[in-house]
């Protein structure tokens, strides 16, 4: 019995999901550059802050950008992309959703740039999940560290002591 021929048409898929400091787009050739790929964000608590800062009511903000690149694999048309961020405590929140027309060429697709400002009071590993048309297609972890600089008894000129929280 002859084998069923498999369709060469694959579903669109994710080829890049990266956190970085900055994302630049060349206006001439539309190429994207990812400046300083990161997997960790360091937040420093100002010396002048109260001892209980940050806390649930007063949080720090971790800012970073995320680059998502999908390839259409010939499946052009409108697709919906959404992202969910999961905190170390397991809380999840939708951080992005957009329907977009993917280009028709097999090497085409769509790029998305997310600028995130995550409010945190504890450090830990946050997960970003990417979904295409409701199906999860990728995930990426980012560690957010909160550093508390403690003033030494000898005074402000003493070397910093860093304490990573989480």
């Amino acid at each position, binding site marked *: 019995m002859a084998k069923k021929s498999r369709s060469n048409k694959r579903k669109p898929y994710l080829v890049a999901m990266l956190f970085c400091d900055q994302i630049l787009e060349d206006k001439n050739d539309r*190429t994207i550059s*990812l400046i300083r790929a990161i997997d960790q964000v360091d937040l420093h608590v100002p010396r002048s802050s109260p001892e209980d800062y940050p806390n649930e009511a007063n949080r720090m903000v971790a800012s970073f950008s995320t680059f998502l690149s999908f390839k259409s694999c010939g499946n052009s048309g409108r697709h919906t992309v959404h992202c969910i961020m999961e905190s170390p405590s397991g809380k999840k929140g939708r951080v992005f959703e957009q329907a977009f027309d993917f280009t028709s060429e*097999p090497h*085409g697709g769509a790029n*998305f*740039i997310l600028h995130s400002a995550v409010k945190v009071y504890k450090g830990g590993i946050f997960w970003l999940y990417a979904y295409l048309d409701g199906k999860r297609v*990728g995930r990426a972890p980012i560690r957010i560290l909160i550093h508390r600089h403690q003033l030494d008894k000898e005074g402000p000129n003493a070397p910093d002591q860093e304490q990573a929280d989480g």
Partner: protein
Amino acid sequence: MAKKGKPKASTAGPYINAAVFCEYPIEDTKDMISVIKIFDRIEAELPAGFKAGERVIMNTWFFVAAKAGDAKGKHKLELVLIEPNGTRGIVSESDLLLLGDEHGQFLRANLNFSIQAGGLYWMDVLIDGKSFTRTPLRVVFRQPSKATEKTPLASTNPHA
């Protein structure tokens, strides 16, 4: 008896977070990587006197970001170029040392490979022989008289 649950997806691994062609990846003094000018289409200028059937050397960079997840230890990462006619050839082999969890490793591969025709190429990314993703590259041959410079072009819709 309670059924065994599926393993949590967030602990599976290894997995690939990026596999892209780029003009060059830079590593700065603090070991931070920047990926400059990602592209999925390239115009290759043919050398003078080029005859159909001859091969042209392409030089490009390929960037891979791998994450460990469950995987720990040494793994083998291979890049396999698939030509428009289906011919496959390994263009890069390297060790991937994974430490588990959220840790990962970046690979910057400077590739020199010969191609015979324009068309749609694919870079298959394999870890320990298993394909994890593949990245397309449209190669367009250009006659030397028409232009002077090789220009990578992004054809994917950038969207902010």
